[in-house]
């Protein structure tokens, strides 16, 4: 009698826990159940707690009168304004310091990053010293340093540091002359607009003609001349319709002019200097990522040095630089929330700070604040993906 081996069970289903699809389904159902249970637990607890503290939920508080002043505001604001308006004021202040910080950090970062690659030994060492010092010290400490140790230690208004008796720096902030536009000034932005449009048209036309015929004009210089020259010409023709409101010492403080509060200065300086040290490293590694053969090939085509940089190295380096650069910009925007530590009235400080303390609407306020930062992050990431798709290498 021969033993027949048991035939492999063709067609019979494997047990439930070995079926990948069913296992995945179970796993995901369990995950959803866990998340839902967790949320229910939290929501239930929160409702109990809010009821115990007598807080009503909802966004009704946004229309109540805030009753506190804000030291810097880009729109009209008084202590009679609503909480909704404090939100807008805070948001605008966050955007202001972020935008100016991004501008300054990019400038410093590119200069230091290029200096780091300088053939001059001393300059390269100075640049790497800058990078190593500032990126290894916490940002909050740098903000405190600029605010408490530098700007708060400035002299009183009477003994202000001054630049040519028009700009003054003292413990109350930086006082700058403010331009007052007289009638007829409206022509100058108009002239600027016309010059910009004309330059863009010129540049596009020049590029098309260059590609079609090989001939080209020095369009860059012409449009620079247009953009600078035309508004200046109009300014002179209309007889310079601008006066300067220079700050003056009256009593214990300066009157007139344009005041930059020390909180803004400290935050802006610290954000720019700190972020610039990261941007410098990004710029350096971006430039170093371009293989030397690219430069050599360009030189072999006898391109002059400035064209080697402009047409060969920089466009390729930018492709490497821009993604991490954007994430540094995002970091800067998020880091601007440290403003709350020195009392610069940004979104976190006036809204998640003062408004939350006064109304007790923790959930709504924190949710709105987080939503703002999330929206900014998502918008920037969307831009990033679009940009990446545009400049990505087209490979086989």
């Amino acid at each position, binding site marked *: 009698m021969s033993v027949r081996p048991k035939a492999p069970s063709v067609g019979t289903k494997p047990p439930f826990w070995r079926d990948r699809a069913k296992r*995945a389904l179970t*796993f*995901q159902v369990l*995950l*959803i159940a866990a*998340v839902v249970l967790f949320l229910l637990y*939290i929501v239930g*607890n*929160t409702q*109990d*707690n*809010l009821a*115990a503290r007598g807080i009503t939920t909802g966004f009704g508080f946004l229309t109540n009168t805030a009753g506190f002043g804000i030291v810097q505001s880009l729109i009209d604001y008084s202590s009679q304004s609503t909480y909704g308006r404090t939100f807008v004021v805070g948001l605008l202040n966050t955007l202001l310091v972020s935008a100016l910080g991004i501008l300054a950090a990019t400038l410093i970062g590119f200069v230091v990053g290029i200096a780091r690659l*300088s*053939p*001059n*030994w*001393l*300059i390269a060492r*100075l640049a790497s010293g800058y990078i*190593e*010092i500032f*990126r*290894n*010290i*916490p*940002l*909050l*400490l740098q903000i*405190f*340093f600029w605010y*408490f*140790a530098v700007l*708060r*230690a400035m002299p009183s208004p009477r003994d202000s540091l001054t630049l040519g008796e028009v700009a003054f720096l003292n413990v109350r902030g930086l006082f700058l002359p403010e331009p007052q536009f007289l009638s007829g000034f409206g022509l100058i932005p108009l002239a600027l607009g016309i010059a910009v449009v004309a330059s863009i048209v010129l540049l596009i036309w020049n590029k098309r003609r260059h590609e079609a015929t090989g001939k080209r004009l020095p369009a860059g210089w012409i449009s620079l001349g247009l953009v600078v020259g035309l508004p200046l010409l109009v300014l002179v023709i209309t007889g310079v319709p601008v006066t300067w409101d220079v700050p003056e010492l009256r009593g214990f403080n300066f009157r007139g002019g344009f005041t930059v509060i020390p909180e803004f200065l400290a935050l802006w300086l610290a954000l720019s200097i700190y972020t610039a040290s990261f941007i410098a490293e990004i710029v350096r590694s971006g430039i170093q990522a371009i*293989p030397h053969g690219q430069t050599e090939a360009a030189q072999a085509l006898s391109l002059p040095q400035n064209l080697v940089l402009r047409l060969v190295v920089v466009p390729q380096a930018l492709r490497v630089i821009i993604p991490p650069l954007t994430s540094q910009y995002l970091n800067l925007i*998020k*880091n601007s*929330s*440290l403003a*709350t*530590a020195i009392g610069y009235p940004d979104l*976190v400080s006036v809204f*998640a700070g003062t408004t*939350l303390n006064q109304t007790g609407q*923790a*959930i709504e306020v*924190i949710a709105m*604040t*987080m939503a703002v*930062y*999330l929206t900014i*992050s*998502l918008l920037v990431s969307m831009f990033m993906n679009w940009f990446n798709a545009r400049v990505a290498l087209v490979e086989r």
Partner: protein
Amino acid sequence: MTIQHKMIEARPAPKSTVGPLAWLRANLFSGPVNTVFTLLGLYLLYLLLVPTIEWAFIDADWIGTTRDDCSREGACWVFVKARLGQFIYGLYPRDEIWRVNLTFGVFAVLIAWLMIPRLPFKRWVAAATLLVFPIFAFFLLYGGSFGLPLVQTHRWGGLMLTLVLAVVGMVGALPIGIVLALGRRSQMPIVKSFCVVFIEFWRGVPLITVLFMASVMLPLFMPTGVSVDRLIRAFIGITLFQSAYMAEVIRGGLQAIPRGQEEAAAALGMSYWLRMGLIVLPQALKMMIPGIVNTFISLFKDTTLVMIIGLFDLLGIVQAALSDSRWLGFSLEGYVFAAFMFWIFCFSMSRYSQYLERKLHTGHKR
């Protein structure tokens, strides 16, 4: 006709290409533009260094116990000296300081063991650091058992608290980060989207709002009557925040492992967890170490933010000491000291991570 039978002795390089003078010419004065830059750089260095050295060393006061011992011409390091114990241990009871020292001593030994490439048993030491050490540190620092007096967390502070926050955030974030990274690469749509939303949410908001949330909203989430220690709230906020960043670093490492590795493991009949645990993660984790060190550096710097929710880390305690009426006006000294401490830690860690990167990238270097 003559034939040269001997090699001609190599002649020394021309005088103009060797020696310090030639180096100066090549690196500092190789043209008019470079010369101008060098002189500008030297002037800048002079402007920065001379007053700094005079302030910090030459005119500084080192000896004494009160502010009257300071001449006020240079730095008053007496202030830092008088407060050093507080800056390092916070308000931890003076008689119990040995516990802090022992904890961080053990930690330093463990980390040094992991960092020195030649030492054996790396896997066991790593497991001990991640699993055993936190429990050991908790019982030693918090006390209340084994005959050790209890030390409430509001007495923790200074450099010690900074280190505790950073290490707890790291140790807590690593496992969550691994799970999130695996989830983000999963083929189950719900698991994947859950992980993506979780990661992008924490990465999209500033740490300050996370800490605010942990300190304001967390008590609301708990059942009525349960209160959470303020330090625990900070731990929770920091760990959640950090785990999202950790997940992205780990995902980067996982993506660097060729697909064939996992397919080969699957062909041998290994289950998902065996494939991940024995094949993919061990290779990936090694490649991630520089990235993990870098996120640890940023976490270490970010721990300073806890002072905004009322904890006294190194920066918080320096800031508090500055408003002491007996020591007003020494903010510069305090900040320079704190900056120096942070700088030492961050700089040495970043150097270590650069060294690792060089070591790991030997194969691909151009």
